[in-house]
């Protein structure tokens, strides 16, 4: 039954996972994501599932690996420093083609950093993060409802492609409360055909990432590559709000995109023709949409709560078409809509001045 409640982002995400059939969670405490394990430590046993507070993030991600190997919908969550420790397991899971959902409610870094919201983990998330030639699928919610909805989507993607999926949130999304429509409960799926269960009436199965015979590893790398190419073709999610004759298109994701949206709406009321592209999947990245916007508007402004990470993907997507501007707010600094509005005005006026001089 669908029900409307007021919920915190982290709790919404945890509820979404349970409704999507997640019955096991393994994690280690770290601020600012403790609402997730705290909620699940009660909810999962009630649903007949397993909750373990592991001795470290290393142990947690490897418990996820074991649960995934027997076909369970397993999840862990952490923040920056803990996600760094989990990279070992993520690399092994990508290599072993095991599905799981990993949530990063980011804090600032490097090192112990701070607990304020940033987007400094974009590259770690979208490039794989651990050793070897692999990618994670990365989803970037921007509301409490999306925290819930994308938890379900993440499990579907993880099992469709047999690959870990990361949900990249931040301290704002984790802590803020918004109305949430729950109740998208899915039936519990059967264990997949590749899962380990004991070799009853069949040949033994093996889940591994070690390939030593000549040519084996090369073939495995190309197999993974082809999977990621399929992901790029089929799984891009993006919100495009670009009215005709835009002269500037902003690109932002996550909580930052909400601030940018306010700035875009205010600028439009003042007569500026500005658009907004909000990637929902960070890998696969909405390259085609960015390319089209660059060709039409000739100017893009990327706003991130870091010193410039997604902007590199925007530049790659543009491939030299149009100018790419960047405005960054690292270290826990959250921009105000006014600051971004001023930046929009500055870029558009500078361009008008340049044209007038020419």
């Amino acid at each position, binding site marked *: 039954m669908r029900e409307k409640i007021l919920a915190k982002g982290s709790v919404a995400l945890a509820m979404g996972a349970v409704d999507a059939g997640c*019955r*096991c969670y*393994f994690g280690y405490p770290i601020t600012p994501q403790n609402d997730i394990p705290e909620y699940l430590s009660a909810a999962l046993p009630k649903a007949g599932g*397993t909750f*373990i507070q*592991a*001795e*470290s993030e*290393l*142990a*947690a991600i*490897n*418990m*996820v*690996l*074991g*649960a*995934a*190997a*027997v076909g*369970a919908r*397993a999840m862990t969550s952490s923040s920056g420093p803990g996600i760094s420790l989990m990279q*070992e*397991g993520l690399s*092994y899971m990508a290599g*072993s083609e095991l599905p799981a959902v990993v949530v990063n409610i980011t804090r600032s870094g490097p090192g112990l950093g701070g607990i304020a919201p940033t987007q400094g983990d974009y590259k770690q998330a979208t490039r794989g993060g651990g050793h070897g030639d692999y990618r994670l699928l990365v989803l970037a919610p921007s509301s409490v409802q999306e925290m819930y909805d994308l938890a379900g989507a993440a499990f579907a993607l993880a099992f469709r492609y047999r690959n870990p999926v990361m949900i990249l949130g931040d301290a704002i999304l984790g802590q803020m409360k918004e109305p949430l429509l729950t109740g998208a409960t899915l039936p519990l799926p059967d264990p997949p055909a590749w899962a*380990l*269960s*004991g*070799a*009853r*009436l069949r040949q*033994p*199965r*093996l*889940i*591994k*990432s*070690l390939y030593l015979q000549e040519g084996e590893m090369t073939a495995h790398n190309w197999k993974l590559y082809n999977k990621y190419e399929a992901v790029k073709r089929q799984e891009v999610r993006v919100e495009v709000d670009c009215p005709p004759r835009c002269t500037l298109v902003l690109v932002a994701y996550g909580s930052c995109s909400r601030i940018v949206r306010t700035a875009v709406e205010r600028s439009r009321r003042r007569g500026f023709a500005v658009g907004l592209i909000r990637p929902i999947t960070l890998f696969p990245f909405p390259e085609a949409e960015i390319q089209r916007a660059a060709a039409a508007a000739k100017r893009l402004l990327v706003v991130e709560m870091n010193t410039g990470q997604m902007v590199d993907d925007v530049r790659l997507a543009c491939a030299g078409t149009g100018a790419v501007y960047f405005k960054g707010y690292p270290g826990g600094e959250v921009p105000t809509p006014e600051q971004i509005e001023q930046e929009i005005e500055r870029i558009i006026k500078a361009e008008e001045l340049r044209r007038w001089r020419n």
Partner: protein
Amino acid sequence: MAELTKKKVFGRPSSLKESAFHFCPGCHHGVVHRLVAEAVDHFKLADSTVAVIGVGCGVFLYDYLAVDCCEAPHGRAPAVATGIKRVNPDTFVLTYQGDGDLAAIGISEIIHAANRQENITVIFVNNSLYGMTGGQMAPTTLPGQKTTTTPAGRKPRGDGYPMQMSELIASLPGSVFVARAACHTPAHIRQAGKAVRRAFSAQLEGRGFSMVEFLSACPTNWRLSPEEALRFIEEKMIPVYPLGIFKDELT
């Protein structure tokens, strides 16, 4: 004249695949593999076992043991096994780990799995050094023992003392069966087989964490002949790592 009949008195365990071991001459991994396979057969577990394999010379267990297998990252087998067992409590879950895997990089995972009383069985093969990477010092290396990274012999102060994992694990209330065995004589192999079966029983009865540590020969990296390696176990290893059952709470 009485008719001669043939009766099979000894054979390959059915859960041990028909493939030749890749191990060096005199290595004990093959014997330990066989003992595990015999226990799997004894309890008829071939179709309900998942073996979790650590990183080291034992990583190719899946080439020999005919059960479902999962590789674990170096040292993390007890965590992987925890995930598997908690999802499927009816699956028989064992880990197969070397001394670098279990006593160095994975010491946190093994201690916490034992401390949580995870209902899993650990087969721990201690050959006193890192065999697969070419004979470097392990936490289990004996004082004075020469390895490729202790060319003058291991000095406990600075290099560390040999870690007695069975004694350590037995001290935790979550462990229910812990034994140290060896394979350097037929009598010891028979004793070891009994210990493995007892450890399996602990899990099958749902009692909790069980572990059998094997003192295992590595003639190649010890720079000894297989026969000398057997004497090394008797004369050098057993004084540091006494054999026996350290804990047995099964009644």
